């Protein structure tokens, strides 16, 4: 109950309730990575995107986020226009996290939370959930791989958006944090969120599978 209201309140009207890929195909550097890939994801569902290296998982995530143009097919976000969905309806977290090594974790968290539409309070809450408090005064350069990934993930929590696009989210995390992030993902799904995650290992939540061919 509580969660439903949160959803309605902070995600706004144009909240993504569905992610549909229709017969999509992507071409990179003259090579057709895949074609005819379809998917239908409803609110509360997660999809584990698998496939060998170079099969186009990252490219597909970036196509959903609007960076990469489809060679064929379409991507739809339910009742929401693609423009609107990409302008504040989804998060993408990947290897290139956009964190500047020379700035402190606190500066980066504050800026990106604000940029994504979160508040100072939500940033603090996210830092608490991800146990970043003691790390905040450190420069990003000094963080360990797992700590840095957690900092990048903080914006998922600090600025609630319905669709999470995750590129190998678990790989630098330790066992405890894989577990804990599983819990966060479950909570996101329970609140009506959607997750599309490119992975090489199974996720600790129930998922729909989508396997890209080599």
């Amino acid at each position, binding site marked *: 109950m509580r969660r439903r209201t949160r959803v309605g309140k902070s995600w706004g009207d144009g909240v993504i309730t569905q992610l549909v890929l229709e017969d999509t195909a992507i071409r990179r550097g003259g090579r057709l990575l895949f074609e005819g890939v379809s998917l239908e994801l409803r609110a509360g569902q997660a999809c584990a995107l698998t496939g060998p290296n170079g099969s186009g998982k990252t490219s597909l995530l*970036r196509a959903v*986020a*609007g*960076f*990469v*143009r489809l060679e064929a097919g379409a991507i739809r976000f339910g009742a929401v226009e693609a423009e609107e969905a*990409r*302008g*504040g309806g*989804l*998060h*993408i977290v*990947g*290897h*290139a*996290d*956009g*964190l*500047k090594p*020379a*700035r402190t974790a606190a*500066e980066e968290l*504050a*800026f*990106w939370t*604000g*940029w*994504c*539409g979160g508040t100072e309070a939500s940033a603090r809450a996210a830092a608490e959930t991800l146990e970043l408090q003691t790390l905040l005064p450190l420069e990003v350069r000094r963080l360990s791989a797992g700590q840095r990934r957690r900092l990048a993930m903080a914006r998922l929590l600090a600025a609630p958006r319905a669709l999470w696009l995750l590129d190998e989210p678990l790989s630098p995390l330790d066992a405890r944090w894989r577990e804990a992030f599983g819990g966060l993902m479950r909570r996101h799904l329970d609140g009506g969120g959607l997750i599309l995650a490119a992975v090489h290992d199974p996720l600790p939540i129930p998922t729909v599978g989508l396997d890209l061919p080599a």
Partner: protein
Amino acid sequence: MSRLLALLGRETALAWGRGGGPLVAVGFYAGVTTFLPLAIGSEPARLAAIAPGAAWVALALASLLSLERLFERDYEDGALDQLFLSPVPLELTCLVKCLGQWLANGAPLALAAPVAAISLGAKPELGPLAFACALLGGLAFAFVGGIGAALSLGARRGGLLTAVIVLPLFVPPVIFGGGALDAFAGGLPWTGGFALLGAYALGAIAVGPIAMAAACRNALS
């Protein structure tokens, strides 16, 4: 709005921290005031005549050199992706980035320009105009240069490309500003050149962000 302010703060801090602002201001100031008398001989009349012009050219060249940093890092480390995924139109984002670049690079230079000119022996009356020209010119350079920086994202030999693209577009403001300074120093009407410089800067602010955003979208795809 608060987002844009935060972005402006971040961009300024990054450009400043990376060495753009103070480096350019201090280096420029020291360079112009110490090198020029050494190289030209300290004949006051001669020095005074070229001081504002030299300051002006140094501004253009310094802007040119700091350009390549405007988008490249953000492009490579993924920050540009995140900036893109926001209700803020990319055009505004680009505008704010250029403003930040200008605050960190152009503004300190504009402050240094009249100081350098006057300490070289230009008439003190020239000070305000040199400052205003440098301020406006810095804006034009930042916004026009941003186009070049964005267009050459992801290209081989990005730096060369930026220079090749940007240099021709730098020529008009250099002519306008130099003309205004020269006319003022010679006691001629200078408002025409200054107005054209302002118009060019305004035009750059109007057109630049659109072109930059289009170029960034193109590079991200």
